[in-house]
């Protein structure tokens, strides 16, 4: 029986706590009697027979007919699937998506369906490479579909292949992939890593265009979501759900397949990273000392390769299929079951170690914009009810935050960093002044459509993701990073954790309460 999440009150006997620092980590001593550490629940047990569970879900959907009854010869079937941005880190083969899509294809073959397209629901994310697609879908699916042009990646800038389904009462245009829109059945294959994923967001975001996305990927939405991990208080979800209503009326029939994974994040070589420090045995301590010493001597590029090659052992804990909203209700409950940790009250200072990976730097570089997004966009928002840190409090992150970008994956990020953040870091201001130009830039479109680049507007979305935290916090400090780069982000650099506490005292006084959010593994703080 896995243990639930846990909040440790730090006393004098508490050992130093692990803080991620990108592709490295350190141990930091937290002040006794006013600090606490939030640990994620232990990994739930995985489903023993995954293939049977998948088949069972397809044959026994929620509020919808079994999948075989929806399949018929001559029909247009489209299977869309979540892209490389999850799960994190990538899972060991076979990926859940491969297993689910193979099962769907088997049923389609049994029904005599031969017009099948498989589409990666990229939205404005980067196109994946062949290796990445093979990892995700398996060689059998890839070799059967990709060479015939029936496995491809959604192109949000291909105007000829987008379909406008209508507008919500709020004036939100719903435009999605034309093949998906014109299909007799759209099967969506999801991995629900966090509570924000899935539901109508799968199709209304993953298969949509900038024209559609801009209605919910904006500062207004982000600043008014409390948080977007809680769909009932998330403007992001409300917008997607409104779009879902249009999809129901004017879009294709959708068979939603949602899966959840446990938070078994690290392979055995790094398993100490998921443990509670006071439970480290001699072997764990030796692993920490040896690995951190080795990483300190390893060139940055090699360090990155080591960490990006990590394949997580996390496994499927649930699968549910059928009608979008009914399915998502069950999925969300399952996500919460694995990730929720009850926390009493807010804190003056929230600390978080930023790890080597976020949804947007898989096989890539965690650039400064993504550091901001990971800390303020994702980790800050991993709450229900109210943020972990009080309004006006301080966030301390640990990360090297170098001025380094992946030129192929993140070209517009470089320009955003150089040309936008030098003008303003205020989300609403940079949205008003710069977003359109980046979104409509032909070169970025070209790189997005033909290369492996994120869309030109994507760095704006990353910045918007952190806008609620920017609004909420009194100061953001990054420990151990490149000072000019951190200042460019509008944050305060600190050389050590103690320096950061000293700097924070200007805002929160000399004896603040401190909470360390010990993630990864991913969790959601249910703040009472």
């Amino acid at each position, binding site marked *: 029986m896995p243990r639930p999440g846990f909040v440790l009150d730090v006393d004098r006997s508490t050992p130093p706590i692990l803080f991620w620092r990108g592709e490295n980590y350190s141990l930091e001593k937290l002040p006794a009697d006013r600090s606490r550490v939030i640990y994620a629940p232990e990994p739930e047990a995985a489903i023993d027979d995954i293939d049977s569970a998948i088949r069972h879900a397809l044959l026994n959907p929620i509020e919808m007919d079994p999948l075989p009854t929806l399949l018929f010869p001559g029909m247009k079937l489209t299977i869309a699937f979540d892209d490389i941005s999850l799960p994190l880190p990538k899972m060991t083969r076979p990926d859940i998506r491969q297993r689910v899509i193979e099962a769907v294809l088997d049923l389609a073959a049994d029904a005599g369906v031969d017009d099948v397209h498989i589409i990666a629901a990229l939205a404005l994310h980067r196109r994946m490479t062949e290796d990445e697609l093979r990892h995700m879908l398996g060689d059998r699916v890839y070799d059967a579909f990709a060479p015939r042009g029936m496995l491809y990646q959604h192109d949000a800038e291909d105007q000829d292949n987008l379909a406008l389904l209508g507008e919500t009462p709020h004036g939100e245009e719903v435009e999605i992939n034309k093949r998906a829109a014109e299909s007799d059945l759209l099967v969506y294959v999801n991995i629900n890593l966090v509570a924000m994923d899935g539901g109508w967001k799968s199709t209304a975001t993953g298969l949509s265009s900038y024209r559609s996305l801009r209605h919910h990927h904006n500062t207004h939405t982000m600043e008014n979501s409390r948080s977007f991990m809680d769909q009932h208080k998330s403007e992001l979800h409300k917008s997607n759900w409104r779009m879902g209503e249009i999809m129901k009326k004017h879009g294709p029939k959708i068979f939603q397949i949602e899966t959840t994974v446990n938070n078994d994040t690290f392979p055995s070589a790094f398993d100490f990273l998921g443990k509670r420090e006071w439970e480290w045995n001699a072997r764990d301590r030796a692993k920490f000392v040896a690995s951190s010493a080795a990483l300190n001597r390893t060139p940055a590029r090699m360090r990155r390769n080591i960490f990006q090659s990590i394949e997580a052992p996390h496994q499927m804990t649930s699968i549910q299929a059928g009608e979008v909203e009914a399915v998502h209700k069950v999925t969300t409950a399952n996500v919460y079951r694995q990730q929720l940790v009850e926390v009493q009250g807010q804190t003056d200072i929230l600390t978080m170690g930023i790890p080597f990976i976020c949804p947007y730097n898989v096989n890539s570089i965690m650039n400064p914009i993504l550091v901001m997004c990971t800390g303020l966009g994702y980790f800050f928002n991993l709450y229900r009810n109210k943020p972990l840190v009080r309004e006006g409090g301080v966030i301390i992150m640990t990360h090297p935050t170098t001025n380094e970008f992946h030129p192929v994956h993140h070209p517009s990020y*470089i*320009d955003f960093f*150089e*040309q936008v953040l*030098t*003008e303003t870091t205020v989300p609403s201001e940079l949205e008003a002044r710069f977003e359109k*130009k*980046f979104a*409509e*830039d*032909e*070169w970025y479109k*070209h790189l997005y459509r033909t290369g492996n680049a994120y869309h030109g507007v994507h760095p704006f979305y990353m910045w918007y993701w952190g806008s609620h935290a920017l609004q909420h916090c009194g100061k953001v400090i990054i420990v151990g990073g490149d000072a000019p780069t951190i200042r460019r982000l509008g944050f305060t650099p600190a050389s050590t954790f103690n320096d950061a506490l000293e700097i924070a005292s200007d805002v929160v006084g000399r004896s603040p309460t401190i909470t360390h959010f010990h993630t990864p593994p991913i969790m959601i703080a249910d703040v009472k």
Partner: protein
Amino acid sequence: MKALRVDRSTGRFMLARLVSGIDTGTAAKIGPLTLTNCEPPALVNNEWQRVHPLLTGICGSDLATVEGHASTYFEHWVSFPFVPGHEIVGTLDSGERVVIEPVLGHAARGAELPFPDAAPGDGDDYAHLAMPPLEPGIQIGFCNSTGGGWATELIAHASQIHTIASDMPDERAVLVEPVAGGIHAALLAISHANKTETPLFAVLGAGTMGLSAIAALRKYSPQATIIVGARYPAQMRLAKTFGATSVVKPDELMRAVRHAAGCHVVGDYLSSGTHVTIDAVGNSDSIALSLRMTRPRGRIVLMGMPSEVTTDLTGLWHRETQLMGAYTYGTETLPNGTKQRTFLMAIELANEIRAEQMLSATYPLSEYQQALRHASEAGARGAIKVAFDMRQEKLR
């Protein structure tokens, strides 16, 4: 008079060149420049007047001379020994405050004007610059006959003298000459982009000249997008103050231009780019960068004195890029077609932008080594313009 004088000494020039890479102050000490008491230059005729400098700036071309880096091109266009300094605000014997337009043009040499009311910098035949009655010299500060601004006295022809208003501080007036250079370069840029309502300009370098060009571009082309590559915080701040649309580090400039132009990148070049790039640096790297980010059939205005450079010109050939020098000033044709003397425009613009913001430090002549060191390290030390201050000199 007290003066800093450059003598013709090949050995000293070579020594200065060798040492300048390490320290400009030492180069000034062992190079061709000496602080001396000498006879003031004689008035040539009654069209000439004595000028007693109050402030005189230190320009990049002055530093190149002192450091022994000036091109051999100038060997026949200067006369030794000479007193450097051509950014001058001073007083006449009458006490009237003036700024000096330093080019020794046709009028100063008694030659026929190329056209009525021509300014000293006008014309398409430079023979007069090497002809009597003066010794050869392109301008005050490089001519044995006139002296220069790094002294307590010099002479200037009536055509070179511009009276300034009493409310114009010396610190502003000493910047009029480089501001005039900036206006000239800016108008060369604007004239090439006159077919578009929203021209895109890049300015590479934000020292005094680059900043002056930025201010002029903004004034005479208000709709323009001006992207500036500046190395140091003080330069970046002033570039913004003077009207740059955006200011980035030099290594970020090409990306900024690409984004503003909305064009593609093909190899090392932008597919399109600026209508005009003003290169206020003037070395191989800056010219190469300018070629890469200026659109086909665009123009590069070379404002920084380049000397010898090594650059692949294939792109220039293929893109039919114009590479144009911008030395000084004269009579300008404004976007609305009217003609005006650059120097008069410069006095106006210097007042508008409060050009004294660019003057960072002044030194007496006796501290010339420190002054030259400061000038050569200006950017890194947070400075823009360094000048000599003769207001307390006893020999004035």
